[in-house]
């Protein structure tokens, strides 16, 4: 269940090495076990330099993919998980768990407590999921607040001490590194009662509970006869409970209005102590019917100190909040575009912002635009080959707005204009960006009165809601568009 080594590597495209090892940690006692367990199939952990080179090559992060290289490009080298075999010094180091996120490659080598030949299935290796948790934990720690480079450096410099706490011998004790950081400062507190390991200390101060529900809506709209539009809501309920006592109990209920859309695919935080089976089984995998469980969704839990995601859910609302079509046609040297957007009457018409981004890929810079908008204004980013239609805070009374125009492009120069491998020929999309505060599409809300807190003092309870768009695409209906399997099931 232990890790043999862990690395953080910043990916620096264009530099001679392609990246730098920002942090690495080896666990020699685990290595000692690996030698015994793996027997003749044992491959030692390489030094940072060779590891960096081999990993970046395997992840295709080196800039040298001009020529076909069999060891990387061969069709039979298929990776279906973030677990790799790295060629190091003529041998293959496996399994290496690795992924790239925000320019940093997170990597570790889980211990396999058996021989590596034949390779055991990943599912049978306990250290693989532990390795993922460690890397996710480090990632959360590095990016838990706003990303500023200096702050990242500070956090990176804290890592050696933190891992000494959270993973002293390669066996992960806590993936929540922030908690480990806190436990250093809480160390002097004495504990008369059993203290959860995931809670470094106790809170002292005014009791308060804050609950915020954020829903993201994504959509793929085609405006075609044979392809169904799809949309989905993904909700996240975030809590911060400042309550005294070691194990305060809290129950939060999420409710829906009578016409609300049932919550499905609910995943909860490990601090939730019990779950109604209706919550566990409510799933988008099943065909929807009226008998779907529609709440209230009760979550009893013992909160950790820090802000945490109490649960995630998805929901299938009956209509997308904004329905639109996008028609784009190539007419000699110019493109003719027509866009129509309609806000559904049930949606709160009060946006923090609402914009439609219309990018043109694989073309030259925009040289000329003629357009007409029924509402809002259009901004042209010539070099980026991008139009942004700023719709603003409200749709007009008719709830329907339109844009039409023609766009002319200059000669294509490869470096500057955006390349895209989906938007080939007439295939194109516009993407909606919007945010509505104090609103959820499902109608889901946390009633202040339904929050039960079993702790000393009456806490102040605050609730927040918002809806944001995410991957909200409207595809050009005059050309082929990428479809999901679901879209074909009309």
């Amino acid at each position: 269940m232990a890790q043999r080594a862990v690395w953080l590597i910043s990916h620096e495209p264009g530099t001679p090495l392609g990246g730098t090892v920002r942090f690495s940690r080896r666990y020699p006692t685990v290595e000692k076990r690996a030698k015994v367990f793996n027997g003749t199939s044992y491959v030692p952990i390489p030094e940072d330099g060779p590891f960096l080179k081999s990993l970046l090559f395997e992840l295709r992060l080196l800039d040298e993919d001009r020529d076909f290289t069999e060891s990387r490009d061969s069709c039979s080298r298929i990776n279906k998980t973030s677990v790799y075999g790295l060629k190091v010094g003529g041998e293959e180091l496996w399994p290496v768990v690795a992924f790239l996120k925000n320019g940093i490659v997170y990597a570790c080598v889980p211990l396999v407590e058996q021989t590596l030949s034949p390779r055991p299935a990943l599912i049978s290796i306990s250290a693989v999921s532990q390795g993922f948790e460690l890397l996710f934990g480090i990632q959360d720690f590095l990016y838990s607040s706003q990303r500023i480079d200096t702050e990242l450096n500070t956090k990176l410099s804290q890592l050696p001490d933190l891992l000494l706490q959270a993973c002293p011998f390669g066996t992960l004790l806590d993936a929540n590194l922030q908690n480990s950081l806190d436990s250093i400062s809480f160390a002097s507190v004495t504990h008369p009662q059993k203290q959860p390991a995931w809670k470094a200390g106790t809170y002292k101060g005014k009791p308060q509970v804050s609950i915020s529900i954020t829903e993201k809506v994504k959509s793929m709209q085609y405006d075609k006869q044979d392809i169904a539009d799809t949309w989905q809501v993904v909700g996240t309920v975030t809590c911060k409970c400042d309550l005294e006592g070691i194990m305060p109990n809290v129950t939060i209920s999420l409710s829906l209005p009578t016409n609300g859309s049932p919550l499905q695919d609910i995943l909860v935080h490990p601090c939730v102590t019990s779950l109604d089976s209706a919550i566990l089984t409510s799933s988008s995998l099943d065909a929807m019917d009226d008998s779907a469980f529609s709440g209230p969704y009760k979550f009893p839990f013992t909160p950790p100190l820090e802000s945490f995601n109490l649960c995630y859910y998805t929901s299938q609302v009956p209509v997308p909040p904004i329905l639109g079509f996008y028609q784009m046609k190539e007419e000699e040297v110019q493109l003719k575009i027509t866009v129509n957007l309609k806000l559904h009457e049930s949606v709160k018409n009060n946006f923090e912002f609402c914009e439609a981004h219309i990018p043109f890929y694989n073309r030259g810079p925009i040289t000329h635009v003629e357009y007409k908008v029924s509402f809002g204004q259009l901004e042209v980013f010539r070099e980026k080959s991008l139009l942004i239609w700023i719709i603003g805070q409200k749709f007009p009374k008719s709830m329907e707005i339109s844009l039409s125009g023609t766009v002319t492009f200059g000669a294509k120069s490869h470096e500057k204009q955006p390349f895209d491998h989906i938007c080939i020929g007439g295939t194109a999309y516009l993407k909606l960006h919007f945010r509505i505060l104090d609103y959820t599409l499902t109608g889901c809300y946390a009633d202040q009165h339904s929050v039960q807190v079993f702790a000393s003092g009456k806490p102040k309870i605050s609730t927040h809601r918002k809806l944001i768009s995410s991957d909200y695409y409207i595809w050009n209906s005059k050309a082929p568009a990428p479809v999901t399997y679901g879209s074909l099931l009309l």
Partner: protein
Amino acid sequence: MGLLSREAWAQRLGAFRASPSAYMAAPEGEDLGRDLLSDLRSEKLSEQTKVSMLALSLEYPAQLWPDAPAAEAAATSLLDTLALLPPRPSALRRPLLLAATTALVTGGVLGPTSGASLRLLPLLLGLASGGDLGRRFGPSSDQRPLQATACECLRELESCKPGLLGGCLGLLRGLLGQEGPVAPVQPLSLLLALALRNTLVIQARARASLQGLLTVRAPPPGGGPWNWTLAQEGEAHLQPQAPSWPAAEEECGLSALEPSPEEARELRAAVAQLLDTSYLLTPVAQAQLLWLLGWALRGLRGQPPVLFKPQLVRLLGTAQLALLHAVLALKAAFGEALFTAQDEALLLRRLTLAAQHPALPLPAHLFYLHCLLSFPENCPLGPAGEEAAPLLLEPQLCRGLLPNLLHDPMALLARLHLLCLLCAEDEQKEEKGQAQSPCHYLQELLAGLQQRAALTGGPRALATLCFQASYLVALCLAGHHTVLAPLTHGLAQLYRARPALAPHFVDLLDRVAPELGEPLRVVLRQEVVSRPGGGEALRWHLQMLAKVADRDAQSATLGFLQAAAAHCTDWGLQQALLRVCRALLRAGVGGGLADLLQALARQLEDPDGRDHARLYYVLLSHLSGPKLGVALGPSLAAPALTSSLVAENQGFATALMVQEAPAPIRLSVGRQRAEGPVPVLQLQVEVLEPVYSLELRFRVEGQLYAPLGAVHVPCLCPGRPARPLLLPLQPRRPAPAQLDIRALYTKSTGLTCYTHLPPLPVKFADLFLPFPKLPEGARLGFFEELWDSCLPKGTESRLCCPLGPQGLEALVSRHLEPFVVVARPPTSYHIAIRLPPDSKLLLRLEAAQADGVPVVLRADDWAVLPHVGDYLRGLSAAV
């Protein structure tokens, strides 16, 4: 080296980390370990610096203290440093404990003979139990973290030396159950679970009982010596061990352990105690606990896994990777005993959900998808170890897991695999609505991938993805023509659009089975040869053609090459062109190719290319087809070189030269025929592998016989009886001889081989020939005439031939029958033998007496007498 400043240490540690091996190889590396230990006690260095020094020792102990004595000394020094710390809070205590533990383990010195071990273990156990020792050891504020650290150190020691804490199980249980100011739950729980698991395994292997280990609470620290017995048994077992996965069922062997009812109750209580407080552990630690307990209880009699049941619902609701993975481990370990069919279905649904839940990151999705295809089913149908869709995973459930073009490459491939599995099932069932069928969707997807790969200037990764997908489809759906036909067509279109992908096509053709490979080869060849030979893509076309050209469509291929030759102006293109010619030569293309090669031998600009074309032409006109194939086949010695020349030279060397090889041929001398004008040896030949054009060459030492002609056999196959080979002998003197034999033959691979066979003896009797048969009445006279003619030039001898049990008659009929002239059985035989070139041997055999058969012999050449003597003695031995 003297005391270093903080900066100097920072620099030194940095230099070491940059490349430990280089640093240690340099002179400054020598003292690092020693300096580090001594400077840890320096009062001038800050704690922070010392922590970073200790951190280094935690990572590289083997480099700092490479052998066991050094490790032991280092651990001792670290423990001394720890003891010398002033009694105020210090950040050094934890890392010092960790470092001492690490040094002992990696140095391999942990054991009853190590002084440092005997100091460290009681110290750790004392700290972990939070007793007086801990209070003496440091200020109270350090107590709790030290207690946890001591547990972690003990856990690491137990991991590396299973059984070490076998004697402390009762103590640990007591600590965990303590009321009031309590020890930290998580480190104790994990330590107890690990020690419990190890103890069970060791005791089961030793076929011993638990011996009350779970209940004895007498703590060894302080006074009594450490109990190493279990650890010493355990040591032999720190070997590749299988996790609680079903494939390893047999190796578990816990069933050998038969706890008494009381022990079983205690064990259950211990496990329940651990599980009950498991919610106090961090999610990753909970997962570890479940794995350990699953390991511990699997296969153990009288321990129903229902203890785990109360935890499952809580765990199934989370999105935590480690927790869901641990549940799968329990599923694999206990199967139906813990998961009913409904539970299994629910778990599968949660897994399916987790594999696509938008709130989870991509690596988690991919891992869950892997788990889904390796799902430990209650009733698995397919072969173990192969990825397959579980039975309960209905296509309906997979809808959201199917790939589309917007997916990341890895996600696309993983989901594509699932889609292929569904298609394979779908095909088995009835065809449903065309548009919705997974196969139809698969085709659309592949078409999309091909379209993207066709983008000129697009990243190679997109092309690679398209070929990976094609490979995966060909692998999973090998027999599905409805999928493979459009795939072939689509790939051909892709080649038309972007010939620069030729290396990918070659790679694909190298790896896919013939179901896709053969039709693809044909369409690609058509694709290439139907173009005018020229243009930028020529080198790709030539590369492609070298892979796909064969005997079919020869004229079109040759036409293309003829046209292309004019455009092959540089060395690289000429090489590519010649490679195609070579491929055609191998495929056995004849006539038209000769013309082309002749033209190339004149026309190519590069002299090397011309020479080569000429060489090919010569080969084509002089070598038979199979031989040519081998001559030009890929050389084993030089598999992949850009220049065809080197590879070829290797190939020629092996193919055109005669190889010396161990013989697959066995020769033996058959029965002699004794007729005709000269003696003829009958050779029996057997082969171990097919042999063609066999030529056997014989030589006789000392010119006893006239030179022997070679024997030719066109073809011999193992197991097929061959007719005997006849080898006429022309002796110059009547004497036995040794035949020296060499064989030259061609193997089925076309290689010509040469071998020296073991020599064969020509026995004296092999040379015997009879005199012509005469009418009955004339025989005696004839014999007497011969008898008389031998003397005085020749010689007469009398000897007694010892006789076996069968008697004279048998002896004669078996060995001398053809040569008998006058027979009066059973008392007298007159025998006349011709010995080429012109000698004779006459024998009179009389009725057997007590000591054998009296033989009178005459020969006209006294030199044969010794051979005759040998022969007659041999006869008696043979009978």
